[in-house]
């Protein structure tokens, strides 16, 4: 399953990228699985996604929780809590 990942704000800067295409290993079906997969990269990925830091995930441009099901071609965005207005 192929997904597009987008990073914003502090996460974009820390990860050093705004976007990546990712082919997910077999067995990753949910947002939770994807986040664990990213955190397993270690370093800043583990710091931001597996530690105390708070972040949000959007799936196909809608706020999503960890149980949300991924699909082929999904657009998944990971970002800090929003601070607009």
């Amino acid at each position, binding site marked *: 399953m192929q997904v597009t990942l*987008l990073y*914003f*704000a*502090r996460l974009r800067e820390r990860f050093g990228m705004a976007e990546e295409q990712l082919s997910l290993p077999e067995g990753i079906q949910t947002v939770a699985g994807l986040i664990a997969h990213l955190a397993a990269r270690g370093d800043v990925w583990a710091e931001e996604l597996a530690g105390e830091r*708070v972040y949000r995930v*959007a799936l196909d*441009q*809608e*706020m999503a929780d960890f149980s949300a099901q991924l699909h082929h071609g999904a657009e998944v*965005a990971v*970002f*800090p*809590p*929003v*601070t*607009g*207005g």
Partner: protein
Amino acid sequence: METLPQATIPSARFHVAVQAEDFDLQAEMRTLSAGDRGIGAITSFVGLVRDLNLADDVVAMELEHYPGMTEKALIRIAEEAAVRWPLHGVSIIHRVGKLYPGDAIVLVLVASAHRHAAFEANAFIMDFLKTRAPFWKKEWTPEGPRWVDARETDYSAAARWHKVVSEQYGNDEHD
């Protein structure tokens, strides 16, 4: 959340925009209300970059957003307000890019027959915008830039609306 009164949404006009340019409140109000003689009340909220907000030597603010999702989120928030209050129109303009103290960041305009609906829906939209619309603020200081952290008070402000009991707005009031 309440069930959807189907009649209210189609009658409301929604306009959302994410832009670098400033906006003109009077012009936006005219656009929102043009041709609709049932509007008795229009409320607006304008958020400004302020100095106190900008601790010590902050010289500018930079706003990043998530193109595509932002517009959808703003429309969704306007629709949620229109389910709760009898609205004639909602206009939301959010600026992005570099902004300076005194600059406007966001405009929310709400038109209704009734003044209390127009006030409450506007406050509701701002509370939800602060927690649901994908914007991020960065402060620029002489020491370099830093991201603004989300505030717990914004999340509690948005959460309180889940408890608000929907009031009845009849035809007893004209603005």
